[in-house]
Every structure is written in structure tokens, then in C-alpha cells.
């Protein structure tokens, strides 16, 4: 797929709103993500960060506003079509298919690049085998970037692994289809500083192989944001209250009040 020029906005949300009954979860949000950028999304709990991910990926319906992705209007699209356009994500609460193997889980993310025809799968077995071997190698290489021991156990059930390994599997699931926009929801939750640092190193390594890949990261771990993101946006009660580099945002009075309260 062709990537837009580096400076063009890949994702552009304008006036995006989400309501649950009377509760306004997202309030007329404007956000731009350029092609190749890494943007951080921070804010107190309940400020609408995951809601934003959900509405971009089509899990929630927008009550107002628009989300444009590479020239296409995402608002109102099914999650399946949004994925086909090149948007993938991880979940705040890990959503892996635990009884399935590591390979299976990663392949679920690879849906776009696999042949799902019934005839092909049932009767063209040698063709299927070739596709299987090719994708096994691809998945193996991707998983190995994050953890070599994990890559040696591609056919063990995902449920047998530790939480950090499961997190890695989830990220691989989101990366394997070579997306253009990756939405990471609190990837470092529950990890030590060391593990987080390692995860971010691996992520950046993969990203260098996928030029033009944009990433939006929701995080509570400020070190990550500071280290990895060029820009970040701060949400509070569904509205964007600040945007800029990490330094700018950290010094912003409104942001400090949001996190720490007024004196």
C-alpha cells in the first residue's frame, strides 16, 4: 500500500463526540496524527482515551463529528472495513483468545493478508500449506523481535504465558498485517520499568521496518510518553485540554490541575 507524504495527516478527527445516554464520553474532539508520527494520549481515568480508540475502530458509534483516515471517512464504517483500511489496535484489558496458540492469535491479526475462501481452505491444501509456512515464518520473525523464547513456543496456548508475554502477543497481532495506524492502549500496564523499556525498544525496532506507520499510545507511564512520543494530547472529561510536546504539556497548568487537583 502507498503511504501518504510524511507531513500529511493520516488520521484526522474533527469534532468527534461519543455519548452514552446522558453521559458525554467524548466532547467534540479534534486530533491530527501525521503519517509516521508517534502521538501520546494521556489523561486521568475515565477521560475518554479508550473511548476515542473505540470510536476510531468502529466499536462505538460517533454521536457527532468525523474521523478521516487517509482520505476515507471512518465514521459509520464497520470495524472490519476500518481494519481493512489499515487501522489496528490493542486492548486495555487483554483480549487474546487464550485457548488458541500464539500463532493462531497472531494470525487473527493477519486476516487481511490471508485467503479465506472455503474452496481454497478445504481443497487446495498444498496452496494452503505454502501460505501457512510463509506466514509462520513471518509471525515467527515478528514475535522474535519482541522475545526469542516466545517465538520458540508458537504453538503453545496463549493462556500458558505470563502477562507480559501476552501483551507482546497482542502487539504482534496488531502489527502483523502491516497496518498504517496502530493504536496501543496502555501497553505497559502491569510491567516493570525494565520490561517497559524493553517493550518500547522492540516496538521502535519494528516501526523502523514499517516506514509511515503512525502510532497512538495511551499511557499512564510518563517515561514512555516522554521517551517515545513526539507529541501528545491530554484528555479530561472527554475534552482535549492540552496538546504539544511532552515538556509543554507537563508544564501546562490545566493538565496539572486535571491530574493533581487545585490547591
Amino acid at each position, binding site marked *: 500500500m502507498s503511504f501518504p507524504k510524511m507531513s500529511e495527516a493520516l488520521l484526522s478527527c474533527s469534532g468527534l463526540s461519543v455519548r452514552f445516554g446522558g453521559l458525554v464520553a467524548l466532547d467534540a474532539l479534534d486530533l491530527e496524527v501525521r503519517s509516521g508520527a508517534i502521538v501520546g494520549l494521556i489523561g486521568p481515568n475515565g477521560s475518554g482515551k479508550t473511548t476515542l480508540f473505540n470510536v476510531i*475502530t*468502529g*466499536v462505538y458509534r460517533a454521536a457527532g463529528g468525523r474521523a478521516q483516515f487517509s482520505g476515507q471517512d471512518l465514521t459509520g464504517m*464497520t*470495524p*472490519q472495513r476500518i*481494519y*481493512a483500511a489499515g487501522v*489496528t*489496535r490493542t*486492548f486495555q484489558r487483554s*483480549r487474546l*483468545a*487464550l*485457548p*488458541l*496458540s500464539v500463532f*493462531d492469535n497472531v*494470525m*487473527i*491479526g493477519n*486476516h*487481511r493478508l*490471508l*485467503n*479465506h475462501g*472455503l474452496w481454497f*481452505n*478445504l481443497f487446495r*491444501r498444498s496452496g*494452503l*500449506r505454502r501460505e*501457512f509456512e510463509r506466514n509462520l515464518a513471518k509471525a515467527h520473525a515478528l514475535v522474535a523481535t519482541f522475545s526469542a523464547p516466545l517465538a520458540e513456543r508458537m*504453538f*503453545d*496456548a496463549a493462556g500458558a504465558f505470563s502477562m507480559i508475554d501476552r501483551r507482546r502477543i497482542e502487539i504482534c*497481532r496488531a502489527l502483523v*498485517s502491516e497496518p498504517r495506524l496502530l493504536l496501543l492502549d496502555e501497553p505497559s500496564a502491569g510491567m516493570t520499568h525494565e520490561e517497559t523499556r524493553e517493550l518500547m525498544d522492540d516496538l521502535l525496532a519494528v516501526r523502523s521496518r514499517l516506514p509511515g506507520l503512525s502510532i497512538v499510545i495511551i499511557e499512564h507511564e510518563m517515561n514512555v510518553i516522554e521517551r517515545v512520543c513526539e507529541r501528545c494530547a491530554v484528555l479530561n472529561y472527554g475534552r482535549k485540554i492540552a496538546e504539544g510536546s511532552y515538556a509543554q504539556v507537563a508544564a501546562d497548568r490545566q493538565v496539572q490541575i486535571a491530574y493533581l487537583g487545585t490547591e
Partner: protein
Amino acid sequence: MSVLPGIASIAAMALYAAFFLHAESQAQVLGLLALAVVGVPVLARAGWVARTATSLEAHPLAARSASVAALAAIIALFHDQHFVMLMLASVLLYSVACLGLTVQFGYAGVVNFAGAAFLGVGGYTAAVLGPHVPHALVLLIGGLLAALVGSILILPILRTRGHYAALITVAFGILFRTFVEVNDALGGPQGLQVKGMNLFGWELNSPLKDLSFYANYVFVGLALAAAAFVLVRRLERSWVGLNLDAVRLDETAAAVFGIDVARWKILAFTFGNFFAGIAGAAYAMMTGFIAPNSFTFGDSLILVSIVLLGGLGSAWGVPLAAGIVLIVPEKLQALQEYRFLLYAMLVIAILLVRPQGLIARPARQYFPR
């Protein structure tokens, strides 16, 4: 993983089956049952069941050949006994239907409590079309009609989750049975006679040599079961099987990664009902009649129980469970009256003690390496 555990287990089971089928007195039957009830958990604890399952998965060709050979041996042993041949054919045909049900809720998670109704559709097709249409075609049409009838339920099933979807199939099963019972064109409560199967000139109701004529149906049943088995295994060991599992385990995550949930549920449901229809048509031709009483809600429960007992999603578990469910009650003559009660208690016990069923479904191996 060596092929030996799988082959050894198949041979042992064939031997056990032979003894069981041969047993005359109730004491012998109960003794054999006691042996199984005590012996199997011991073997399971020793890891033998898991080893068998993995071995079968790793060597599909050997496993299938061994099964066919075992079946051939049993046919040879009991070739002139109507009862045994009828039982074997029934087990094989029920396996076809239950393999279909496995695809529906073992893989895709679409619960079907109206399985017997789809068998009934096939059966009535055989009754009505049998005298006029070549029987190989009748089988196919029976399957297609069952799939078609099932498609009526597709919209409600797609829009509902969990218990609600289950209710729809329950309601449908009852609805279908009532419909057929009240409909005199389909024979009403008495049902219809069904002509014996005649495949390309081979009249199945006339015996070959000194074999019971039911043996003919065993051969046809074996062909159908083998085809169903191969198709279901290939389905599971493919991207399609992966999609079905993804849909079953987490619809939202599946959707977010591009999986068309509706498409795969429809496929699984239709696929399964197709199998049930074919099995129903063949079964009706074998028993010679079809009536509303042939496919009650209780029968649908039996189908679901077979799938669960064998191990949800385990294809090898299906014929094993079908064998247990269909044959054991028949052998307990003295307890004939109590067989449904005992059977219900057995299933309850298994659900409490070994819910994963007899053969837990092994991890997907796309191509045995």
C-alpha cells in the same frame, strides 16, 4: 509424537467394543461398564488420554486407517447380527450429524438445540422424494433443504447472543415438530413410510451373502462419516477454522481484526445443518419410516450431549461419544425403563467431574509436522 499410543488406543477400544457388543448377560455388561468407569479415569490421570489425542492429531492418516480397520474387524465379527449392524450404522450416521453440530457450536459457538429437527427435514425429504428421485440425489437434497430451513433462523440467531440464541433454536425445534405433526400432507402424527436406500442400482435392503442387510447401511454410513470427518478436520485446520474459533471466543476482537462475524456464523450453521440433513435422510431410509416422534426436543438434547461428551470441538470424540450414548443404553436390557434417567445422571456426572469431555480438543495443528 509416536503413532503408537493412538493406534494402541484404537485397537483397545475396538476390542472393548467387540466384547461389549457380544456380552449377553447383564452381569457381563455391567462388569464391562464398571471396568470402563474405573479404568478410564485411571488412564486419564496417567496422561494416557492426552497422549492418545496428540498421537491421533499428529498422524491423521494412520489414525483413520486404524479406525477403518477396527470397524472392518467388528463388521466381520458381527456380520450377521441385525442389532449390532443397526447400532453401528446408527452411530456412524449420528456421528455425521454431530460433526455438523461440532462445527456449529464447537467451532463457531452457535448453539443449536434443534439438531433433531434438521435430521427430520432430511428424513421427510427421503420419504417424499425417495420413490421418485435417485437416492444419491435425495441425500444431497435432504442436506440442502435442511440448510435452507436453517437459514430461516439465521437472522434471529445473528442478532442475538448466548441464551437468547439458544432459545430461538429450542423454539424452532418445538415449532417444527408441531408443524409436522399437525400437517396431514406429511403423514401427521403417524408419519410416513420411507423406501429403503437404492444407490445406483444397489438395493441396500437386500442383504449381501450372509451379512445382515444393515451392514449395507454401515458401509454407506462409513462413507458418509469418513467424508464428514475429513471435511470437518480440514475445516478446523485452516484459516476458516481459525475464523470460527475467533468468532466463538471474542466477537468484538474478531470484528476489530476484520473478521466478518455474520458470514462465519452463517457458514457454520448452514454447514452443520447440511450434514444433519444428509444424516437424517440416510437414517430414515435405513429405519424405513419417519414420524414426528423421531425427532423430539429430547433427541436434540442427545445430539448436543454427544458433542459435549466427546469433548467440545474434538472430532475424534464425536464417534466415541455417539457409540457410548447409542449403544450402552441398548445393552442394559434390565434397565431399559430407567435408561433415560441413568443416561441423564451420567451426563450430569460427567459435567461435574470431567467437563472437558472425553477427549479434550487439542491445539490446532494446521499441517502435522
